[in-house]
């Protein structure tokens, strides 16, 4: 009998057209807790180093965790784990919506996708049954059209569809997988991986429930979480949506602008969350099981940027298609967001690639000849929208942009390198490491999927947010020393921040709920109460920490096998230069190396290589990952 989990793994081989259902081993699952922890073990053991992420040998794991699809308020998530074609590193792309919960209700915790179909297919998983069905008629359709066609074809409006659009089919290296029309497993190019496998979509639905080991105790723990979350410190996220952060971040000088040339945007009031909510919002929308409902349904009614109703844009998207490109037209941003969703593009990498091209154009590294006469000037919303179209179809200059900033810079030469804002090939998101938080600088440098602020956590919680997230009892240094401090302590702090966030990742939870303190968020201690009552496993917060550490180390080992070491844990050169103007003028990153030294040491990793020491791996029971 399984509680909390479905207890099954589905293995689909697209080459042979066969599938296999495997029973999960309880002890092995508990060791990693589930979701990305268990997926890291699967991919580490089953996918040898050096495999081309777009080759048939590459595997993809769709992963849910203990709390996915349950009443735990953060349980709307699933994660797609794979080797990124954009970075060559481990990647995990999280998404909300209904897909994760419905996969579990269909009877599976994990789906492993292998091989490559001869012709386009989709996988239909419902109530324990699996069908690999032809998708030739769907190839070339966008995400919206595909979703609608599948609802009609399968005659079930309750299905959840995770599909790729034209961007994934065309191999854009940062193409996304979009579920429930507007929720993106965005980063790292999973859409291109699906496209390379001729896999158009995975469709799920099920009437199976999730059994609860101790229902009364579980209800009490969930009620406690509901109460605590009423005191959530980032109240603007539920009330205004993430886009509410635009005004705040701009006033603090931490809103990346013009390809990170500066950190404030003079026209920020024209793209604010307040304006979006007042003028374009249709309604608030929640992921499955979420009590916050930070999602926004918006549309532009008429004009050249008119859109049908669509989820978003989120904070990241508004900055990336807005200030990062100098664009101050909210309607252009909503249109750009809509196109990214229907074509299946990561809005962050898309915006950053456009901004990079604009800077190159400004510097004369790209000319009208490269762009077929289209000037790529800062702030031109129409050009931004046109470029999104061109990227998705790899058309004209879009073919260059579709490769991401790192490869573009390699082609444009050394003068372009200075403007290439990425770590390990992943374009940076909308958080400024020079002025927002120096722990964030550490995170950008070491994050397993490259320049990422979210996996496994938002590093700035500690010194920007002044929050301990329940980590005081585990020894997180307290109180915070200030955002600009670059002492080695920042490296030590990141160990705690990362492992606390990794708990959400291994449970299949949304990390928004883990930002706070006791009484205002879901701390590791409260997660332990919820998971214990749910699974009957009696897990402690310390056990969750150990499982998180296992997962975190395994991802590092996965990357090590691909050749990534300390030498790759670096920031774009621009961050050593001061922010030139605005409220945070003068801020820069000077002592990354000292912070990294402290971080590796705190993790039990070798300082020279930045890799987990054999003793650490033995301590965690990960002998198989010792090289």
């Amino acid at each position, binding site marked *: 009998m399984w509680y909390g989990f479905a207890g099954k793994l589905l293995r689909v081989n697209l080459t042979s057209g066969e599938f296999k259902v495997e029973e999960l081993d309880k002890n092995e699952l508990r060791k990693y807790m589930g979701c990305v922890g268990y997926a890291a073990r699967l991919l580490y053991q089953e996918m040898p180093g050096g495999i081309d992420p777009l080759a048939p040998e590459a595997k993809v794991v769709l992963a849910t965790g203990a709390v996915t699809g349950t009443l735990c308020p953060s349980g709307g998530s699933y994660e797609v784990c794979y080797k990124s074609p954009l970075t060559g590193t481990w990647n995990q792309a999280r998404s909300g919506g209904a897909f994760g919960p419905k996969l579990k209700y269909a009877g599976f915790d994990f789906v492993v996708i292998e091989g490559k179909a001869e012709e386009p297919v989709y996988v239909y998983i419902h109530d324990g049954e699996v069908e690999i069905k032809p998708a030739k008629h769907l190839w070339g359709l966008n995400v919206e059209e595909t*979703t609608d066609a599948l609802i009609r074809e399968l005659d079930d409006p309750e299905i959840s569809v995770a599909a790729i659009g034209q961007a994934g089919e065309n191999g854009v290296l940062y193409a996304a997988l979009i579920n429930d029309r507007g929720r993106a497993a965005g980063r790292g190019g999973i859409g291109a991986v699906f496209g390379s496998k001729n896999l158009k979509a995975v469709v799920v639905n099920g009437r199976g429930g999730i059994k609860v080991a101790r229902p009364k105790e579980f209800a009490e723990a969930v009620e406690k979480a509901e109460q605590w979350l009423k005191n959530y410190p980032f109240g603007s996220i539920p009330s205004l949506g993430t886009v509410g952060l635009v005004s705040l971040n701009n006033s603090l000088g931490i809103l990346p602008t013009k390809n990170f040339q500066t950190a404030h945007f003079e026209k920020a009031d024209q793209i604010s969350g307040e304006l979006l909510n007042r003028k374009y919002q249709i309604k608030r929308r929640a992921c499955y099981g979420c009590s916050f409902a930070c999602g926004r349904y918006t549309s532009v009614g008429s004009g050249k940027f008119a859109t049908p109703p669509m989820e978003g844009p989120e904070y990241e998207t508004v900055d990336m298609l807005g200030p990062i490109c100098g664009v101050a037209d909210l309607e252009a941003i909503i249109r750009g967001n809509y196109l990214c969703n229907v074509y299946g593009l990561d809005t962050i990498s898309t915006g950053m690639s456009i901004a990079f091209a604009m800077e190159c154009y400004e510097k004369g590294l790209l000319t009208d000849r490269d762009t077929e006469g289209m000037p790529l000037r800062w702030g031109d919303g129409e050009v931004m929208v046109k470029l999104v179209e061109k990227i998705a179809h790899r058309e004209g200059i879009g073919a260059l942009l579709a490769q991401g900033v790192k490869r573009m810079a390699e082609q444009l030469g050394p003068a372009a390198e200075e403007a290439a804002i990425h770590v390990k090939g992943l374009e940076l998101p909308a958080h400024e490491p020079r002025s927002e938080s120096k722990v964030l600088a550490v995170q950008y440098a070491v994050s397993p999927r490259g320049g990422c602020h979210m996996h496994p956590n938002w590093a700035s919680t500690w010194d920007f947010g002044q929050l301990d997230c329940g980590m005081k009892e585990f020894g997180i240094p307290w109180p915070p020393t200030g955002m600009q401090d670059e002492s080695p302590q920042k490296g030590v702090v990141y160990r705690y921040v990362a492992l606390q966030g990794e708990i959400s990742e291994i449970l299949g939870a949304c990390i928004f709920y883990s930002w706070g303190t006791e009484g205002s968020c879901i701390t590791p201690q409260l997660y332990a109460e919820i998971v214990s009552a749910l699974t009957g496993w009696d897990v402690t917060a310390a056990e969750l920490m150990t499982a998180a550490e296992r997962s975190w180390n395994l991802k590092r080992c996965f990357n090590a096998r691909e050749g990534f070491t300390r030498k790759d844990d670096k920031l774009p050169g621009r961050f050593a230069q001061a922010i030139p103007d605005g409220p945070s003028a003068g801020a820069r990153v000077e002592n990354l190396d000292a912070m990294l030294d402290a971080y590796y040491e705190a993790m039990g990793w070798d300082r020279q290589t930045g890799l987990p020491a054999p003793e650490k791996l033995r301590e965690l029971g990960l002998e198989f990952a010792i090289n």
Partner: protein
Amino acid sequence: MSKVLVVDPSLCTGCHRCEMWCSLTKYGEINPSRSNVYVIRREPAVDVPVVCMQCGLCIDVCPTGALKRDGATDAVVVDENICTGCGTCVKVCPYGVLRVDEETEVAAKCDLCSGSPACVNHCPHGALRYEDAGKAAARRREIWAMAHGVRIR
């Protein structure tokens, strides 16, 4: 006067927590397909919780007399010892809020949790309420009229 359930779809975010609380309360598991409140979430931007009106049409058609009105809450409740799971009530329900549970094989419907509905107690945005019947009737009129009125743009 007793209380009744009332729904305001404009406040619903489509989170489905009411369905999960319902199934947890009734069956000790989390399973929206074993819920007696139904959230219809469609694109674009439709989120509507559908609940039993406790109208009692099902009482009249039940061939075994398994459906009765509870004296305390006025809810229509299923006597599981008498119900044969024939599904006549499901056929006749105008709102589609009755079902034959696949595991227990008897009719299942909202019984207002004996006067403390779990869905209402946990709705994060007040889209579901358990209100005094007079007040609820006024709110129902309002929502019914607005839903059918011509929107002037």
